[in-house]
């Protein structure tokens, strides 16, 4: 039976971390102690046995899965919008008075536009004037209400983009499995609210959200055709199906 210090020296010898003095000690010991020699040989065999185990190549889809799961960069507090950027630029150096003139003009223009086109609270026409936006289909929503999980599962289509949103609060860990028809929808990405504690894994035709607590996730798809599309979600608790919810978007007019 080898003592603890001796075993430590043999292990360190295997790892190449012995000092030169310790190495000499080990060599002397190995030459005269058959038990130590046998133990050392066994350790070496174990190490080479483990080394021989092949390192697996990750599947090519892994990188795509990872990149598709990354949350969208959060808007930074330092984000500068074009109008403010221009104003900022003008206020620098000697151009201050031009900045005030421009800003004043811009505000006056917006107020005049709002006055001429409708009530100030009705901003829809203002949005329409700035940029074209595809009409959004009505939001379809399903309620989830169980003792362990409450929330909503909704789907909305804008042009060819379909956004499914799971806003749930689960008192214990759940799997929320969103299933979709790959013939009709192409999964693009997901994004989570800042504090959502869950994890999402992506599989062909399904997305698995796992976690507990308050979670809000948006799953964004590209709509491949104008056909009606359904999104179904299984709610699993402890590996067993608790319920399912479903939302359907009608045939698109696009």
């Amino acid at each position, binding site marked *: 039976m080898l003592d603890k210090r001796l075993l430590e020296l043999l*292990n360190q010898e295997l790892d190449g971390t012995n000092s030169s003095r310790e190495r000499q000690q080990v060599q002397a010991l190995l030459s005269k102690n058959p038990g130590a020699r046998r133990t050392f040989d066994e350790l070496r065999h174990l190490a080479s046995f483990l080394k021989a185990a092949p390192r697996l190549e*990750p599947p090519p889809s892994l990188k795509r899965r990872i990149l598709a799961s990354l949350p969208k960069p959060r808007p930074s507090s330092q984000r500068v919008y074009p109008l403010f950027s221009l104003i900022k630029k003008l206020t620098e150096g000697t151009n201050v008075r031009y900045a005030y003139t421009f800003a004043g003009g811009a505000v006056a223009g917006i107020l005049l536009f709002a006055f001429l086109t409708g009530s100030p609270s009705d901003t829809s026409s203002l949005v329409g004037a700035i940029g074209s936006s595809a009409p959004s289909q009505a939001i379809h929503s399903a309620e989830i209400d169980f003792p362990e999980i409450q929330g909503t599962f909704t789907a909305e289509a804008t042009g060819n983009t379909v956004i499914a949103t799971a806003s749930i609060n689960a008192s214990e860990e759940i799997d929320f499995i969103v299933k979709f028809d790959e013939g009709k929808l192409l999964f693009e990405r997901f994004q989570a609210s800042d504090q959502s504690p869950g994890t999402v894994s992506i599989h062909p035709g399904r997305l698995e959200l796992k976690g507990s607590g308050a979670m809000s996730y948006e799953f964004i798809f590209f709509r491949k055709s104008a056909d009606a599309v359904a999104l179904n979600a299984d709610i699993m608790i402890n590996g067993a199906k608790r319920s399912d919810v479903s939302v359907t978007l009608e045939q698109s007019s696009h």
Partner: protein
Amino acid sequence: MKHEQDHVLVQHCLNGNQKAFEILVDRYQKPVFNLAFRFTSSKEDAEDIAQSVFVKAFEKLNTFDPKFKFFSWLYKIAVNESINFLNRKKRFDTFDEDVHSGKREQEENFHDHEMTASIDMALLDLKIDYRVVVILNHFQDLSYREIGQILDIHENTVKSRLFSARKKLKGLLLKRGISHA
């Protein structure tokens, strides 16, 4: 940018350049996947873990301290994710036997030879504290110091765990008829 050092790429990511993160994924997806695979002995689970590791890393990138090595930081996330995964799985598996027999046999088909399968099964029989040091030392080639940093334990603790783990592992392999280990 492909040849930039890790901490430079991290800085690019923090400045909003997602391409830099893609390079980090290219660089580390294999070791992270293998690490997770050695923990779980399942290719599918290893994929899920690896995905979750990189997403967590991306989300917490602003907490990375460039004084340390990026891979140590990433492996720390990978080890934690793997352990959490195993704990969750333990809770979900009603019958522990599912893990210890059915699942393993299924995975055995994945391996191209028996020896590898024996290593995986012997590793699964090691308790987590031992398994993690064996994986980090023998499969990721990390030093005692690096393992200590990842696990937040002293180098001496790494050594004593590793030496005990080797002894235990040798016994487990012998039990499985691998006498030359």
